């Protein structure tokens, strides 16, 4: 998934996990952050006789950072409580900080790592010549 315009990488953190995510616009940044978080949770195998679930979510926050946390928390809750991983389809982010996303979910059997939370620690979406980037710390 990583290329010049969008991707993520792990950054060393003494106790928890941190990723740096980049994207050409906010939509690709948010999608990469979701992919990065799933990578950290180490999703292993899909349930046999895969069932797809479609969901639409709408989230509102005070700023883009808050929206990013809400979005990742929604996906994390579904992973840990429902054993569902979601592919993010159509995603829109408005300048009033509303996010609308179409999610396509698949049941999984297990995952490798409990992520306790997505933190606000030094969370700052920065604009770069190529688009946007952000570092996210996960408590594990």
């Amino acid at each position, binding site marked *: 998934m990583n290329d010049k315009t969008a991707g993520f990488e792990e950054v060393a953190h003494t106790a*928890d996990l941190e990723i740096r995510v980049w994207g050409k616009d906010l939509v690709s940044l948010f999608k990469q952050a979701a992919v990065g978080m799933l990578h950290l949770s180490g999703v292993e195998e899909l349930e046999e006789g895969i069932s797809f679930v479609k969901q639409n979510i709408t989230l509102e926050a005070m700023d883009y950072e808050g929206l990013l946390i809400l979005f990742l928390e929604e996906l994390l809750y579904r992973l840990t409580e429902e054993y569902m991983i979601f592919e993010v389809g159509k995603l829109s982010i408005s300048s009033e900080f509303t996010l609308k996303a179409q999610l396509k979910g698949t049941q999984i059997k297990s995952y490798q790592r*409990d992520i306790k939370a997505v933190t606000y620690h*030094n969370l700052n979406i920065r604009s770069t010549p190529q688009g946007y980037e952000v570092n996210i710390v996960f408590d594990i």
Partner: protein
Amino acid sequence: MVSIQDLKKINSYEWEIPQSYRPDMRVPVRIFASKELLQDVSRDKSLEQAVNATSLPGLVGSVMVMPDMHQGYGFPIGGVAATRYPDGVISPGGIGYDINCGVRLLGSRLTYQETKPYLNELATSLNQFCPSGVGTGGHHRLTTKEVEQVCREGSDWAKKSGFASDQDLRRTEEGGHIRGADPRHLSPRALKRGTDQVGSLGAGNHFIEIDLVEKIFDPRAAQAMGLQEGDLALQIHCGSRGLGHQVCSDYVKSLQAAVHRFGIVLPDRELVCAPMDSPEGEAYLSAMRCAANYAFANRQVLSHYAREAFESVLAGKVNDWHLHQVYDVAHNIGKIETHLIEGKSIQVCVHRKGATRAFGPGAADLPSEYKKIGQPVLVPGSMGTSSWVLRGTEEAMQRSLGSCCHGAGRVMSRTKAKKTIWGEDLRKQLEKDGITIRARSMSGLAEEAPAAYKDVDLVVDTVTNAGIAAKVALLKPLVVIKG
């Protein structure tokens, strides 16, 4: 970034970052560390995070960091900060996502010699009786009403349900039941996550360990705790599971707006907070207590199953297989306590994040048997290394808000640990050292390798030399169960 040159030496084990270091500091930072341990600290961002924490409104004294400190998010791990009650703030990020993550120690009259032939069987049995691992719940499925009851009553719920004795409760911080916990302040998601996780260990750095009491340093205190050289003991390290994580997430989110309303400017959004006398602050305090009670109940139910595991293996083979409670302490929590600060006795909220309460002799919350010796302080080492039983001192009350270190403290990132250490090799090495391991994940094992942590003995030497705790017993691991 804070460097060692910015620190003022108070004595060999105490250092200060003066309030003049940065304009937004409201109080200084006090660091408990030997020079050797300071070298580790200066490699990550823990001191910078401690400086950030000094910006919270209503702080009194100084923000303290213990020698096991390391980089966290918001507060550093190993941080202790007191805010004036009730007009000072409470900060969810200063307590952490795993609310009332803590340690419980159970002692026994089982000698190593008589139990040695059964250790492997005990490992298997503990692993079966005490559910652990990523996404694994406990043996019980509770209704929402029952989860609310657990949150209100903590270990008292466990006792009513047949999982606890009077002595267990008496020998738990706050009796395992913090008052003022109203589940109406919990979100539906938090309650839902609590339905199936009571009595489950979880994963990460959580563990159950059978230890050998290798050396006694303070016979009088050890006797009061029922610890004897050559006997076995059991440690349980875990917290409030998904319910606690959800509480912290919910309130870090909702307080983002509150800080604007109260005009509080912070260097890191993870430090969001609210005055304890505001509706937002009161709601979080209450929700946090719910999660703390859930964690006390969780460790209590796990103790019950650990006792059953011991009984299933040892009944009929040894005389006395009972595991008695030594103590249970929280190391991620906010507590309203009265302390003498700058000559005045005041009520404060002590945030302990990766720090343990360490009350000295005579403290009101201690059971009669510990009144003379001080509170047992449990300091687990990293996997495969020693753990320590300490006791709180009068000096801790005067100098560290009755607080102490909580463990070894990480020095190596998980990513690096996984790259440099192979889980299977580590397991073989530990087994060669005479430690039986049951682990669900080999990569998880590698992340928790001893090399990723500081030397717990150095950490303990620092707090005891600083006078904020005294050594009681040294424990050596025999069996480790990891999620």
